[in-house]
């Protein structure tokens, strides 16, 4: 046990993902020995992030404004929406530079055993958007897990009657990898989703 103010910081740091007790102690003592201004900047960054970041009114991405930078970008294609489980999936897809539409953040994937049902996700909000925004294609970019696949099928069942095209991200082989390293489930899906050359 350290002096209470230090111990309190160590306890908080140790709750962060990927930070063990040892690292928490190292960080705490680093901050103790740092300039007052340096420590203050970190504290300010954390509290400002928490107080200014909110959810986009349209897509539920994180933003500091009413709408996120993607939704308010006039060059984006408003007829295509890519549905993701979490806001942190958006920058990952943006890095591909292969998508020019908008997003919709569900807030998770259905997992009935864990008590997460359709009504706990923003599927109703997605249906409303499709009806109001003239969306023509919805891409289900949920994780390729049982929960993500089930969620994608539920979205499809809800949206198909509205006459919108629902597509799913293809599952396949990692680019640059060897075929014999792929597991049979991934390989099987890659075969089913094969494309004509």
């Amino acid at each position, binding site marked *: 046990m350290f002096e209470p103010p230090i111990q309190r910081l160590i306890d908080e740091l140790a709750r962060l*993902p*990927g930070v063990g007790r040892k690292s928490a102690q190292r960080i705490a003592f680093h901050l103790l020995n740092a300039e007052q201004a340096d420590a203050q900047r970190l504290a300010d960054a954390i509290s400002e992030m928490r107080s200014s970041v909110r959810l986009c009114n349209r897509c539920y991405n994180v933003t500091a404004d009413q709408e996120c930078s993607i939704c308010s970008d006039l060059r984006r294609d408003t007829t295509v929406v890519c549905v993701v489980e979490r806001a942190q999936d958006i920058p990952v897809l943006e890095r591909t530079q292969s998508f020019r539409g908008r997003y919709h953040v569900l807030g998770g994937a259905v997992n*009935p*055993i*864990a*008590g997460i*049902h359709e009504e706990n996700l923003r599927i109703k909000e997605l249906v409303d958007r499709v009806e109001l925004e003239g969306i023509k294609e919805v891409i289900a970019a949920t994780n*390729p*897990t*049982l929960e993500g*696949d*089930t969620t994608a*099928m*539920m979205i499809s*069942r809800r949206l198909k009657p509205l006459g919108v095209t629902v597509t799913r991200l293809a599952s396949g082989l*990692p680019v640059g*990898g060897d075929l014999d*390293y*792929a*597991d*049979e*489930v*991934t390989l*099987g*899906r890659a075969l089913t989703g094969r494309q004509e050359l």
Partner: protein
Amino acid sequence: MAIRSDQGIVLRGYPFGESHRVVVLLSPNHGKLRTVAKGVRKTKSRFGGRLEPMTHVDIVLYEGKELDTVTQVSVINGFPNIRNDLDRVLAAGTMIEVVDAVIQEDDPSLRMFLLLQRGLSVLDDAQPHPALVTAFLLKAADIVGVAPAFDTCSGCGRTDNLRRFNFAAGGSVCEECRSPGSYSLRAGVVEYLASVAAADITDLPNTDESMSKEALGITKRFMEYHLERQLKTLAVPNV
């Protein structure tokens, strides 16, 4: 520390640490197994889809202090058609939830393993029969020794006029034996449930939609009474 091999059907998994996953399997020999699969949440993981729920796998385990670590996995049956169909995946989810609820760790039940394996195979082969989940629940109840009585009154043993169902009594009851908390059932439901309980899950009796819904509803409530918890995966109107 030793290495051992086993097989099992993956019931569920949950994140563990940064990139690991705890995977819970039903083994025919050891009941529920709680194992750790290291690094599987990374896209490059070799285990990839092999440890997703509803997959029957052969595994090699490295025994650890608390959790055994999965070192090799090969798929025996991935039930691929279940995963591509919403109705099947939901039915399979209920089967998995029930098995997960009634079987404990180090509580081997070969019969329950075989029931789950067959249930998933039947789902993988064809669209689910409307009574499949009902039949699965009744057979699971039978394996754990709480099968409801359908053809005789749980109070006096008579075999006619069984229009009520009482969870605490253990099944159907007649008008004289009915006690507070007995459910009143529509004519024919008890007979239908009896025929479902007796049938093989590949050859289930047909009936109309409202009868099969009522049969499923009462079976669900019966299971929940015995499990002392709700079945979260099963959305049927309560009877």
